[in-house]
């Protein structure tokens, strides 16, 4: 049940997208998201959508997996769409009581829904094709300049990779504890809001206890291996840009710049 959550999960593979340097992917994803917000016209959206579809095809990730990743945000998307539909001022095409639908509203709703879906798909693609370790490595490298400002970059990256590392473990644990309490007749699915909140107690208490236990064990294990932060630490895998990274970067930046220029001209 909980195992079916694919958000933020990594799918091992050997596609071009998998082999790109994680820094390249991170930067390209950021450019994609920023560009998405400058798009105002069907043409811009069309170009970005084609770009996204192209990336999905390159990644070798099946569309079904992406749709499943989008499922948790369906409600948010629908609500955003409806709000945009009714609350955008303009010339009403149809009205009833206090509701009215305008041409501008339809346009805004469609674009907003597209924008959210594309944004999530883009980030899903990043996490699907990049292992959490590489992702935090990339973040650490990209944030390195901040060290001058005394930002503890290495520590932040380490905290993030530990957090990411424990998501599947804790999900597994949740699943197990849930099953164990269900075996004693716990009911997580019915009853009112209060009753449901109370029903979570047998799940949350053991989960917290075990999270603290794991954190403690990990800290001891790290200390046993003399971990003392990033000072003088070398890496097993050193990130290096390859030709494909330069090409992908040029392509992505050019596309982003192109769409932004289109946006400036109101397209």
């Amino acid at each position, binding site marked *: 049940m909980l195992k079916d959550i694919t958000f933020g999960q990594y*799918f091992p593979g050997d596609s071009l997208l998998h082999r790109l340097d994680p820094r390249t992917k991170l930067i390209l994803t950021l450019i994609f998201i920023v560009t998405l917000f400058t798009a105002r016209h069907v043409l811009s959206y069309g170009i970005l959508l084609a770009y996204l579809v192209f990336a999905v095809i390159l990644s070798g990730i099946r569309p079904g997996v992406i749709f499943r990743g989008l499922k948790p945000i369906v409600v948010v998307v629908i609500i955003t769409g409806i709000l945009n539909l009714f609350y955008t001022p303009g010339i009403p095409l149809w009205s009833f009581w206090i509701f009215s639908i305008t041409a501008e509203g339809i346009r805004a709703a469609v674009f907003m829904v597209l924008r959210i879906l594309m944004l999530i798909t883009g980030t899903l693609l990043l996490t699907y094709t990049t292992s959490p370790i590489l992702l935090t490595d990339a973040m650490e490298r990209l944030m390195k300049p901040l060290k001058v400002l005394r930002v503890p970059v290495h520590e932040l990256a380490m905290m993030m990779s530990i957090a990411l590392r424990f998501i599947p473990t804790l999900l597994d644990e949740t699943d197990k504890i849930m099953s164990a309490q269900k075996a*004693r007749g716990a009911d997580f699915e019915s009853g009112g809001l209060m009753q449901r909140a109370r029903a979570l107690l047998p799940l949350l*208490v053991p989960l917290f206890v075990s999270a603290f236990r794991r954190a403690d064990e990990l800290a001891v294990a790290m200390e046993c291996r003399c971990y003392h932060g990033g000072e003088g630490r070398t890496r097993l895998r050193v990130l290096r840009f390859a030709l494909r990274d330069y090409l992908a970067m040029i392509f992505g930046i050019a596309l982003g710049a192109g769409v932004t220029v289109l946006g400036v001209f109101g397209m």
Partner: protein
Amino acid sequence: MAPIIQTENISHVYSAGTPFELAAIRNVRFQVEQGEFLGLMGHTGSGKSTLIQHLNGLLKPTAGRVLFQGEDIWSSPKKTRAVRFQVGLVFQYPEYQLFEETVYKDIAFGPKNMGLSDGEIDERVRWAAGIVGLEGSQLERSPFELSGGQKRRAAIAGVIAMRPEVLILDEPTAGLDPRGRQDIIGQIREYHRERGAAVVLVSHSMEEIARTADRIVVMSGGTVAMDGTPREIFRRAEELHGMGLAVPEVTAVMLRLHSLGLDVDPAAYTMEEARASILSLKGGCARA
């Protein structure tokens, strides 16, 4: 006599449609007879844990049916919930599910969910605590203050208190010292005897299973590979080795003696049997 639980060719596929798709069990035909003590063995990943979670309706088979007393446990949500009380499942490391303020309240969690009266709950909690050897004063303590072995026993009491007709335990002695193991196995046998309930014991320890089980089922690669009495199973030592399992140490010794040319029983799996077999040999030699 009809079996109390029966699976009709059940299969279960995890994460269907993703790269992680995995058929944990395939076409498993398995049954538990009324009141028997069944040992379930298998290498890690053989599908034991997946199978037992089907027996009380925690997992729904992707194909096939699970019958409890001849009725499909998935016929209605009410039925599924009722079966969870009649088929008690103790997970691996059950001490990690303790959550209440006191041991007493934690053991009472199951019976309370059954909707029993306060008097009945009290009677059952004290009875279950008695079976696992927890005393009166320990019941009022926080479960987090108990020792590892005591926590484990408190968690098992939480399931026993529901008085299930089938008690399933997934490696209840994992990670305990020899004394703790013996205590827990003894307590499970006591429950078995006192209630006449069927018990399914999942274990990696051949000694444990050899000493307690009437019948043994061996899982391998998601299917039932062997099903028979301990004697029948341990006779097939070669095959067991092939599945990454071993025979009890006594049997290993007897096998070795047999292969050295001594006329002993190579399938003896208890100390008493082995002793009798070796002594009879000695008697034979003396006569010759």
